[in-house]
Structures are given as structure tokens and as C-alpha cells.
């Protein structure tokens, strides 16, 4: 199975842009809501995003996470953990 974030990098290698949603990433006062599926390293997690992608998210800036945690992610980096439990 092709990993979605591999697609992301491969498309970048081919020079094709990948947008998420309608908003621009930079401006971005934009953040994508994701749910942690499983840990993928000490500060990394595989997450299901609201827009349907599964992607790897860096979690160093929010501290330890566990499956089921909901995060707001900006440009591949989790900025905040939402308390939805």
C-alpha cells in the first residue's frame, strides 16, 4: 500500500503541488484536526486527518501522545492537543 505522506513527497519530487483543503498552508493561521491512530516513534505518530488522509505528524511540540488523542496540526507539526475525551 502506498503511504499517503510518501505520495506527498513523491509529488514534491515530481514538482507537483499538493494542497490540503481550500486554505493556504502558509497563511495559515490554518490548522488541520487529526486523530492519533498509532505511535510511529518517540515524537511521531500516524494520524487520520479530517480531510481523510493518513499522515505522519511530528508531536515533539505537544509532548507524549497516545492513540485517540486529537491534535491540531500545522505543516506536518502538531501545535496543540484538543481535549475531546
Amino acid at each position, binding site marked *: 500500500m502506498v503511504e499517503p505522506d510518501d505520495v*506527498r*513527497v513523491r509529488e*514534491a*519530487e515530481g*514538482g*507537483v*503541488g*499538493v*494542497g*490540503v483543503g*481550500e*486554505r*493556504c*498552508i*502558509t*497563511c*495559515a*493561521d*490554518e*490548522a488541520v*484536526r487529526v486523530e492519533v491512530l498509532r505511535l510511529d516513534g518517540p515524537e511521531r505518530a500516524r494520524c487520520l486527518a*479530517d480531510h481523510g488522509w493518513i499522515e505522519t505528524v*511530528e508531536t*515533539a*511540540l*505537544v*509532548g507524549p501522545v497516545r492513540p485517540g488523542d486529537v491534535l*491540531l496540526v*500545522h*505543516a*506536518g*507539526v502538531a*501545535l*496543540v492537543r*484538543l*481535549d*475531546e475525551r
Partner: protein
Amino acid sequence: MRFVDEFRDPALGRSLADAIRRLAAPGRAYKIMEVCGGHTHTIYRYGIADLLPPNVELVHGPGCPVCVIPMGRVDDAIAVARRPEVLFTCFGDMLRVPGGGGTLLDAKAEGADVRVVYSPLDALRLAERHPDREVVFLAVGFETTAPSTALTLRQARARGVANFSCLCNHVTIVPPLAALLESPDLRLDGFIGPGHVATVVGTRPFEFIPREYGKPVVVSGFEPLDVLQSVWSVLDQLAAGCAEVDNQYSRVVTRDGNPRALSALADVFELRPHFEWRGLGFISSSGLRLAPAWAEYDAERRYRLPGVRVADPKACQCGEVLKGVLRPWECKVFGTACTPERPIGTCMVSSEGACAAYYNYGRVARQGAAS
């Protein structure tokens, strides 16, 4: 979907709009600036301006980092991108931002190796996959985006990636707000504050606005009901004769922000003495550059940049739009010479720029109202 659907409820929206109408004193005109481009996008996409009484006007602020990049900095980026050894990476929005000598997209068409990435971490992965190339990431954005750049540089050092560098154009949101508040041609009653910047910096940095300028600030979420409730809160403070920082986005934002992210920023970046903002001029301590300890990753030190200041095109009125003095459709070239397909000014480039947001969503309603 939790935390989304309930913030788009039409009945609640109508009742909030009614409450806003009751609060707005007849005979008084209100101008509220939404600082962030994300809010501008929400306002036009959901037609929020149409729900407000005519004497409550939303003014679009300088909170789109793509829109405030001066043309000379774009030319610097293009000069680096054209180097044969460089694999240049940036967010998609930056491709079409015009510099004095074209855009990054033009440079790409002419053979420069320019790639779009979603995250600076993707740029770092490209550097690892292409050890024979020099990968440069064009870092643009406010405090929401800067932590991802900081984290990427930390990972580059930890993994020993030497063929990666960063052309830093990160900016901070508070200095331009202070500059706007000092601007004599600006009359604002309050601010809708940037919610996701505040996830990083917290609400504390905005407290000088009510304390020193007596204007309410409401840090807001990005769903339509968030924005409506924030407008209501600004009017409520004005009606009560008080001014404070209200955290409407408390499901995400705290007063102190994210300490880990702030610490990463303090580690990797330092403030520039001054930085040029398109339309606003030079603003002290408003831009970030890599701290000396990270010099080996600094593209500004690695490459010779033209560093030429380029004046905006005469026809472009982005500066007035960014200050909220002009509304997008009042610009001389809006929708004629300047369109999202062929932008003259940066406000028309990014989907969160005030002109592009209005062009894409707002003008239909306005034309309908006029006919």
C-alpha cells in the same frame, strides 16, 4: 464532526446575528479588524458580512504572511532558486507571488528546480533523498508556521543533513498590530485576534492592545459561529465601555500558548532589527532570522542574495487594503488588471488574501445586492 458541525449551525448563526443587531447602537459606525487571513476567508466564504448590520464593518488586516512579503525578498528567493545546484522548496502560495523580475513559477518554467512542499519536514526529506543537491526551504509564515521550521532545523542537525538550508522570511504578528494602532489614518473599534497564532504565543501578547490603546481584542476560532460570536463579544465590550482580551477560542488557545513551541522558536530564531512589510514599510523587531548558532543552515549566509529593495507597482494598492483603509473592491485594479490568475498585488495571490477571498466569494453577493 465534533468541533466543526456545531460551529456551523444556521439557527445559532441567525440568533447570534440578531444579538449583534441588538447590540450595535444605531447611528454609530463600528470598524472591527480581523487580523488573520483565515478569518477573512471564513467571512467571505460563509457570507458573514451580509449577516451584520450595515453599521458594523469588518476590515481585513495584515495577517496573511504571503501578502506582506515585499517584492525584493521574492527576487532573493528566485536568485537562489536559479542556482544550478539548488533544489528549491516552498509552500504552493509562494509560487505566484510577483517579485520585481517575475515569480518563482516563471523561474520554474525557465528551468529552475522549484518544488512545492506541504511541510518543511518534506523539504528535509528531499534533502536526504538527494544528497547531491543543495535543498533550500523558503520559510514564510507567522508564529503558527515558524515552529515547524524550527523543528525541521533541529532534525536536520540531529540527523546530520548538511545539504539543507532555510531562507527565512518568518514574521511576528504583534509588531505590525502596534504599527497599525499608531497609524494616523486608521480608525478601528476592536480586533478579532488570530486563533492559531495564539495556540503558539497565547493570548498574553495581545494584552497591550486593550491596556495601551483601549481597544477590545477577541481571539477567535475559524468556523462561522466563532467569528460571529467574536464580533458580538467586541460589540459587547464596546457597549459596556470596557476593553480586554477575550479568548473565544478557549477550546484550543490558552493565555500562555505552547511553551515547547515558544522554546523551539527562541532556540532557533532571533529577531531582525527591522523587516520590510509590503504596504506597511519597515517595522522594527517584526521579522525572524536564524540565530548565530544555526548559521550553517542559513541560506542568507550560504548564498549571495541580490538584497535589492523593489518598490510596489504604482497601480497596486495592497498597502491600503492591508491597513484596512481601502476595501478590496475599491482598489483601482481589483478584478480587472489584478485577478487570482494574474495577480499584481500579493493580496490577490493567496486564497486568504483579502482581495482573493473577496474575488472568489464576496463579489457575487455584492453584485446581487447592487442589481
